Structures are given as C-alpha cells and as structure tokens.
C-alpha cells in the first residue's frame, strides 16, 4: 500500500513537470550553436502575381537559380579596356546607386537559390497575411511617404535649399543607421533578422542562461536572456530587449523596448517581435517570426525561412573606422550648398 502511494505521488509529480522542464532535466534542449548563412533569393514580400500562392514550383525555383547564375556570369564578363567615362549627368541608375551606379557584382553575396521548407519552395518569406504582403496603417503610409520624400533624383544639386525646412544632410543623425554604422541595413540584425545583399552569416552561441546571435554587418551581438523579464519600458535599445524561453524543442524569443528607429524599415518604438528557432536537422534551423506594430501595420505579419549551417566564419566588421562615406556625404552637401548660394548649379 505504502509503495502504491509512493508510485502515485511520483507519477503525479512527473505529470506536473512541463515538457521543457523534463527536457532541461535530461539535458535534451537542442543545441542551436553554430554559424549560419541565411542568404536567399526569395523575397520578404510576395510578388503580387502569386496572390495567395505560398508555394513555388520546382521548375520555377530551378529557373530562378539558373537565371541568377546567368546574371552573375553576364556581369563577370570583361569590360572594354578602351571604355570612356560614364555619361555626364548620370548613368540613370536608380535606388541606392543614385544615378552614379553601384559597384561590381563580385562584391555581392545574396545566395544562389530560393529556399524550401519541407521540400516545398516558397514565393515569399512572409506567409501571413495569406497574400504574403504587409498592410500599412494610415500613419504607416504617411511615414513611408515622408521617408520617400527625402529621396530625390541625384542631379548633383542642393535641391533641399528650395524646399525649405530641414534638409536631409543638415545633421548626421538624420542619416540612415547603416550609413552611420549603427545597425546594418535591411534589418540584418533585426529582429526580425532578414537576409540582405551581403554579409549574411550569423553565429549563435548558447549557454543555459543566454543565447547570443552575432550579425556580421556592423558587428551587432544580440544577447537574449533566458527565463527573464523585460527591462523597464524606459530603457530602449537599437535591437530592443530580447528574452527567451524553451517551448519543447523550440527557442521562443520575445523582443520589445525598441528605440524610435528600429532596424526594421518603417517600424516604430511600439515594435514587438516574437521569434522561434527550431532545429530541423543537424545542419538546419527553421527561423520564424511574427511582427506587430499597430502604429505602422494594420495587422501582425509572420514569416519563416531556413537558416542553413555554413563552414564560413563571421568576420570582424569594424564599420566606424573605415566609414569615410559619411564624411564625404556631409562635406559634399556643404559644398553643393555653397555653390548654390553663390549662384552656381
């Protein structure tokens, strides 16, 4: 009888333990540590023509890989050794290349193919909302409009003198976080951590109390405290305050306390990100996330993509030391202003 009571007590005690405690007690928490190359050709948002279709056919995925290889091959071809200078007034390139051109393709490293999960290729990283696209609030739309207004075609003129008010080069703190070497561009350090044009290698180091994720670009180390509480709301950080816990074999990370300009484009200090890291095999993690920021996006959005292990190292970045561009940009703006005020171009 006594023995039965003891056995029952033991059984009840075991049932009361959560799965994660059991795992922890048996040291079966998965090991996420390692280096991962998260580059992918699959875009964050789904191209509109796919509508609600989350999956990409194998043929389409293979075509993307082949087209990308062809593009790299084409951009690797020799140039004319007797070429002239590019056209006066600009080469017509858009975006970051700003009418003066970017740089050779060999500097770029954005992966070779579209990613697949459970043997199926995807049309976008975002899977919810079901069309794979984010919906802005009215305030979010205005924020985006305002941001785009600061981008004008580069004509080599101080156009901002004519618009009045503060110009985009009046203060170094008006410049982008990447340009100032504070965070890498494109939410590379996140959260959520997204693939970008280059420097896509991450390093995870795991201890019983912390998980560290090192992002190569602009040397950002995210320190995630396990089984902890968030810092007081008045403490704000570039990458927010991240706390984590294990739910079975999945690491769940909750991040709040962002500053007014998170690495994720358009997001505000109200950004809240929940990430999940799950080992799917000995060479792959599945990274998934949900983003909420009701000031900017009308509804939460979620995405996922694999993090394949890599043998490559994460290299030092030391961004500030060699960041000559910021000085060049600000000095250039002062010179163009002086020319305009002197009646020049």
């Amino acid at each position, binding site marked *: 009888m006594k023995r039965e009571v003891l056995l029952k007590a033991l059984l009840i005690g075991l049932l009361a333990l959560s799965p994660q405690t059991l795992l922890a007690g048996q040291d079966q928490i998965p090991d996420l540590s390692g280096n991962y190359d998260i580059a992918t050709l699959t875009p964050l948002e789904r191209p509109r023509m796919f509508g609600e279709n989350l999956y990409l056919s194998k043929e389409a995925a293979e075509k*993307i890989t082949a087209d990308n290889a062809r593009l790299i091959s084409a951009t690797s071809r020799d140039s004319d050794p007797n070429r002239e*200078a590019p056209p006066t007034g600009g080469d017509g390139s858009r975006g970051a290349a700003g009418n003066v051109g970017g740089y050779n393709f060999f500097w770029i490293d954005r992966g070779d193919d579209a990613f697949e999960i459970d043997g199926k290729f995807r049309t976008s990283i975002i899977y919810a909302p079901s069309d794979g696209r984010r919906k802005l609030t009215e305030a979010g739309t205005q924020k985006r409009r305002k941001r785009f207004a600061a981008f004008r075609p580069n004509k080599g003129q101080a156009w901002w003198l004519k618009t009045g008010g503060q110009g985009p080069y009046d203060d170094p703190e008006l410049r982008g976080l*990447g340009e100032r070497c504070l965070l890498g561009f494109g939410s590379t350090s996140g959260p959520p951590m997204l693939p970008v044009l280059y420097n896509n290698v991450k390093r995870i180091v795991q201890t019983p109390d912390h998980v560290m994720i090192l992002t190569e670009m602009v040397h950002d180390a995210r320190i995630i405290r396990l089984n902890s509480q968030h810092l007081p709301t008045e403490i704000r950080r570039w990458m927010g305050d991240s706390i984590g816990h294990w739910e079975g074999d999945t690491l769940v990370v909750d991040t709040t306390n962002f500053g007014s300009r998170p690495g994720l484009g358009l997001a505000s200090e109200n950004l809240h990100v929940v990430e999940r890291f799950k080992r799917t095999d000995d060479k792959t993690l599945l990274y998934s996330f949900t983003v909420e920021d009701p000031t900017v996006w009308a509804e939460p959005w979620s995405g996922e993509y694999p993090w394949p292990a890599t043998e490559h190292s994460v290299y030092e970045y030391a961004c500030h030391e060699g960041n000559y561009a910021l000085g060049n940009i600000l000095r250039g703006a002062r010179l163009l202003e002086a020319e305009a005020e002197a009646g020049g171009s």
Partner: protein
Amino acid sequence: MSLKQITLFASVALALCVPGQLSAHHAFGAEFDPNRPLILRGPVTKVEWVNPHAWIHLEITNDDGSKESWAVEGGTPNTLLRRGINKNSLVPGTLIIVDGYQSKDRSNRANGRDITFADGSKIFMGTSGTGAPEDGRDPKER
C-alpha cells in the same frame, strides 16, 4: 504555375539582383556627383581592405605628365574574403581601369562603378583560390 508566372517571378528575382535597385550600406547617390564622370587608369598604390566599403588607391598620370592619387570605393571585403580573395590579391603596381563619378566634396575619390585590369577583365572575378597575379603587373598571368 503558368510559364508567365515563372517568367514574372524570375524577372522579379533578377530585378532584385541589380545592385542599383537594392539598399546598401549607404546611397552612392548621396556621395557622388553625376555631373563629374571619370575614367581612371593607373597602377594600384594601396588597398584599404576595410568595412563598410573597401577603398582601392591608384595613381594616374595627367596629359601634362603630372601625377594624381585617387581612391575608389568598392564593397565589403568580407564577401571576397569568403571566396579566398584578400588585399594581397591586388598588389601595388597592378595596372587597373576604373570608371565612376567623383565625390561631391570634390576630393580625389570616386565610386568604383566598374573596376577592371588593363585588359578589361574584372579584378576579383576568376580569382577563386589563390589566383592572385604572380607579380601583380601582368593581368594575363592570373
């Protein structure tokens, strides 16, 4: 999926591949002047293998025989390091050609829009492994 969809997706993927369409560390349009195009020819004098962007220095000779030092901006060296390429892959004395636009601050800096050897071949392409120039002067030796 229809062929049209496949083609469209591929074109989207390729559009994303064009460097000019992508965000980068900073906007080159903010730094360089479209009204001051350049073609620079001369030997490499120094390579600054630094982030966020590498700078390759070269010396050019003007028509009157005077010399000028210029620096051209590239991308992150980390990408190339992973392909086995480092600053010693482009040794001083190597003749290069660069086209780009001068910095808006009128200093002797330009964007390295296209950086090639004297024969027009791309300086860091085809140099996987240890394929640095043997003496750094003849690009044909790569």
